[in-house]
């Protein structure tokens, strides 16, 4: 796996040769580790041109909005039938807010998990893509992990950070990634809420067999057999201090058969530029 690993003392990381994770760009594994039910790794993308292309094609397609315009008019006509005033809501919802870097980071996380890790996201055709994905209770991303012949519910947290501290602030505290993953691991009420939400997205679609298999596995296990993903999106050089300590701390909390995979992605463009690069697709 890390056959030609080299020590980069200045960065505190062990970087392997460029690998092929099935993504549209080359990836170097810089550090990795395992403790109990938690594994972690640091991935580095070196080629900025390849990264730009990925952002402006694969990632952009998850963010773009083609059909919203005509649907929006129908939404507002229907709202008028309720007897409430519609002007304020109409004004707000027809504006085109600028993309935030964290939104691009979240879409990027979904893409790399889908293409590199075999996670499937039931597509929500009704979603207003100009509305930030901030309302899922306790999880940023929800889907299914396909692993050999088995299917698991996959939940994830994504943090995008240019904080120079290692680990960055977004891994700490009540709203930090590790606390959120710990909570996700131990609160079946959140899992079942998300399963109810996934239900409508999977019923009568190609995702239905996956849904049934992942849900049945989850219920049989008494609410434990799920896979959690934590992705830290960075625009800094790799360093195992970004996640190793927090991963070990999380490992002392997570009980089998729940599993956690933490990945720090070290990317070649400043985070503040990601929305602009992703917008180049049109």
């Amino acid at each position, binding site marked *: 796996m890390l056959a030609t690993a080299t020590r980069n003392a200045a960065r505190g990381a062990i970087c392997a040769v460029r690998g092929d994770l099935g993504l549209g760009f080359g990836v170097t594994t810089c550090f990795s580790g395992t403790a109990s039910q938690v594994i972690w790794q640091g991935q580095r993308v070196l080629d900025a041109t390849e990264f730009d292309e990925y952002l402006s094609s694969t990632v952009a397609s998850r963010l773009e909005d083609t059909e919203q315009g005509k649907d929006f008019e129908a939404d507002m006509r229907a709202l008028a039938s309720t007897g409430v005033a519609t002007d304020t809501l109409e004004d*707000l919802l027809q504006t085109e807010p600028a993309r935030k870097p964290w939104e691009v980071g979240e879409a990027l996380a979904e893409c790399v998990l889908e293409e590199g890790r075999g996670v499937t996201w039931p597509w929500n055709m009704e979603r207003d893509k100009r*509305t930030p994905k901030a309302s899922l209770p306790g999880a940023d991303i929800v889907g299914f992990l396909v692993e050999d012949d088995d299917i698991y519910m996959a939940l994830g947290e994504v943090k995008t950070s240019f904080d120079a501290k290692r680990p960055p602030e977004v891994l700490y505290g009540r709203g930090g990634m590790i606390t959120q993953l710990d909570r996700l691991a131990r609160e079946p009420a959140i899992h079942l809420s998300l399963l*109810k939400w996934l239900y409508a997205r999977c019923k009568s679609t190609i995702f239905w067999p996956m849904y049934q298999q992942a849900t049945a596995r989850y219920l049989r296990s008494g609410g434990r057999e799920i896979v959690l993903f934590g992705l830290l999106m960075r625009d800094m050089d790799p360093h195992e201090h970004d996640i190793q300590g927090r991963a070990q701390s999380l490992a002392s909390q997570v009980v089998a058969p729940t599993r956690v995979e933490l990945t720090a992605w070290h990317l070649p463009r400043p985070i503040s530029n990601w929305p602009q690069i992703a917008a180049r697709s049109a």
Partner: protein
Amino acid sequence: MLPSSWVLEALGEDRVAWSDNESARRLLELALDTPHLIDGARAEKDLQFVAEAMELAVLDLLDADNRLDELRVVSEKAFQLLRVMSLPDAPDARGDWLLRTACLGILGERGADVARYLKHQAWPEGTPTADWGSRAKATIRDAWLLVLRKAGWEDLDSAQERVLELRRDQRTFEEEYLKSLGDRARTAAWELVAFYHLSKAAEILAVYTTQGEVDGHFDILQQLEAQFDRALVACQRAELVELEATTRLLARTARQLVENSIWTVTRSVDSQVASFVKNIVSRESASPIFEVLPPQRRTLREGAL
């Protein structure tokens, strides 16, 4: 014997049987006013897991018109669990709990027990200083709880007053609320869109329950469906997980309430019955009857009355 449901099969007969026993034991304790005999924390957590899974099984049956008996049985089981569990302390969570429990009870054809449950449980108090989003949600939830309890005309009048109150206050508070939210404003705006459709649906149901028509129209199911469909679209636009599940449950519950309504049941029996129904529903009636019980509905369907 478990109803045929892949969700309940995965949950396992042992867990379902345990939850049946646990809910029966707790109901007895409540009836005898005795303290919990068993340490509750672990059992409460396990019971919650089973209850939430039952709700998933209910969701799977909501749109299956050929499986109404299974929907009734699973909804009833979920209701029996939720009504003996501890309610959350936080007002918003408590209100949500009451609403879903009541909906499951209606779907389980336990309307009288739902009315008793809603009468004896403390409803969350309104908070005048809360933001518009929270106030709108609390107001609409109150309206729905009143429609579900319908303890006489008072509840149904109050439900309609809540909806009017919402429309009146919207002009004053909505814009400032949305401006204060920054990045979260779009999500909150879609949530309000869903709330307003749910408020209209509550109003339609309250009016139909008392008058047997809405503005001279009898297509109540279609009117309700239009409002719920748009509420669901708003939930899907902003991925409002909890509200979407509540909306699906409310939509099916509203349909059940229309089917239970004395107006609906007697309309197909005999037009001369109409004046009799108006009398027993009227404000002058000491105990107005808005609904027909399941056995009476069955008898009427079979033409025995």
